[in-house]
């Protein structure tokens, strides 16, 4: 794939200056604009690469391939393509939610591209697998979610908001009310299935990169115990639990998490 193609295909933008590069990878139902509250904290010290996965944001819809993007590996290839198109080496990959896992896959596949990982509210597997793993959902819950996406497909994908809400049902601040992402229903459903049904637990111990895990205390999608599981299975990881409601720390608590990310990335 050619540099200019990838830049256009994934709507790549680069801001800030610095010797080190942060690549920010958005989660399901979002696009690169979701990083807007965090990037001002980084841009004086780091070069920041933002992009949209194919099928999200302002990416080129013609590049969508159902089979490729039905697996997280397809999204990881987007990360690899973006890093290679910009000739990056030793970048620090900051991934929100599912992008913690696509970033992990990319870091294992091409380690020279990514030197460190930051995982914001990661979950390697959303389903419960008793007795040792509690992902938070039964299969029927998530199949029900996909069914609702089908049944409400007119409207839904055009007004998808990030899953900011926490376990108490509160948390959507007025500032984030306009944080809608418009996407194609088929693309969104494909991404949803890849996100919610992939099991990446076996990959956690395959990455050698130092990893910072940021988990929210009250997150309906990824509980603290999931963060602890990720930490326990990644040799060079550090877990920070942030007192917060919801699954979008980068949007609801940018000021709180920015120093941790900066310290980790600079070290």
């Amino acid at each position, binding site marked *: 794939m*050619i540099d*200019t*193609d990838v830049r256009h295909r994934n709507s790549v933008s680069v801001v800030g200056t610095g010797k080190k590069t942060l690549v920010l990878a958005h989660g399901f*139902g979002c696009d690169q604009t979701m990083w807007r509250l965090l990037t001002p904290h980084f841009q004086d010290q780091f070069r920041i690469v933002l992009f949209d996965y194919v099928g999200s944001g302002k990416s080129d819809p013609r590049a969508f391939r*159902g089979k490729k993007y039905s697996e997280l590996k397809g999204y990881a290839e987007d990360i690899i393509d973006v890093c290679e198109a910009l000739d990056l080496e030793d970048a620090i990959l900051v991934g929100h939610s599912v992008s913690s896992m696509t970033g992990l896959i990319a870091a294992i596949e091409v380690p020279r591209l990514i030197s460190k990982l930051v995982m914001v509210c990661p979950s390697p597997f959303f389903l419960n697998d008793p007795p040792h793993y509690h992902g938070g*959902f*039964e299969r029927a*819950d*998530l*199949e*029900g*979610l996909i*069914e*609702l*996406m*089908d*049944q*409400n497909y007119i*409207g*839904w994908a055009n*007004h*998808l*908001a*990030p*899953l*900011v*809400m926490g376990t*108490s*049902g*509160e948390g*959507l601040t*007025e500032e984030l*009310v*306009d*944080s*809608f992402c418009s996407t194609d229903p088929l693309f969104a459903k494909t991404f949803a299935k890849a996100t919610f049904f992939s099991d990446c637990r076996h990959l956690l111990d395959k990455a050698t990169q130092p990893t910072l895990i940021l988990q929210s205390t009250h997150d*309906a*999608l990824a509980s603290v115990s999931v963060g602890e599981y990720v930490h326990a299975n990644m040799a060079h990881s550090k877990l920070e639990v942030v007192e917060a409601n919801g699954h979008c720390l980068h949007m609801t608590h940018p000021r709180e998490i920015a120093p941790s990310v900066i310290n980790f990335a600079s070290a």
Partner: protein
Amino acid sequence: MLDLGSTHLIDVDLFPCGFLTTAKDRKIIVANRYFEESLGRKGLEGKCLNELLTKASQLFCDSYVVPTVFRDGRCCEVLLTLRSGSGHTTPKVVNVQKMADGGLSWAFIEADNRARLFKELEAARCAVEVQREELEQLSRTDALTGIANRRQFDDALHRIFKDAERSEQPVALLIMDLDNFKTINDRYGHDVGDKALQALAGVLKMTARETDTIARFGGDEFACILPNTDVDAANELGRRVHKYISELAFQCSITISIGISTRTAEIPIKHTVALKRADQALFCAKKAGRNTTFVWGQ
């Protein structure tokens, strides 16, 4: 009871639609009797609406319904799934509106038939999509050999040359055909001729890289498009194809002739020109006695 003037009164409790008001955090303030009875639940006031929703519907409310209400003032015709008192799930069409005090008013209507219809429609849509993909694949595949047909070849040639324009990487094009194919058909029959074509396709599949495109171009004419490949590497591939063909255990002797053309940053020819040049090189290979490779311009 709503008073709509001197003569018309509506009993909201008995109206055949579930009514609910909640605070912003979805704590139920008022629920009408119809709603409670339709769910087989009592004493809903003070509870959180989330308790009545399936987990999927909670997520859907969080990521779509409530944000939309906060932004647009309302969200209509949403299908959500509720849990009845007996643990059963029941689909409802829901309209939600923001009230002046910041709370939310909700209307729930039965949607069992509608949910079934959606499922049937979705299943039909999926089946059509699968068939469409299968048909598209078939329309781009050569039935005899299973490799790309002319249509797919043309698309790939156009795309790969366009990529090369940007990347300035070389591209090689090989065109080849079976020597004396007509004689094979006449002497051994068309079924043997077909098997010879399949054997050649098999050799090309074995030799080409994943990024190369191999295609049956015409009757006994085949083509390979090799991105990021210079003339030496293309020649080497041609040499290996000749070698593998010669090692085939086939019922009659088969050989092929190959014509090669290349596009480089220094000689940035169009794909149509590359095609003509490879064809001319193939003609030269035939003229030189067959079972050989010619490179255009050499």
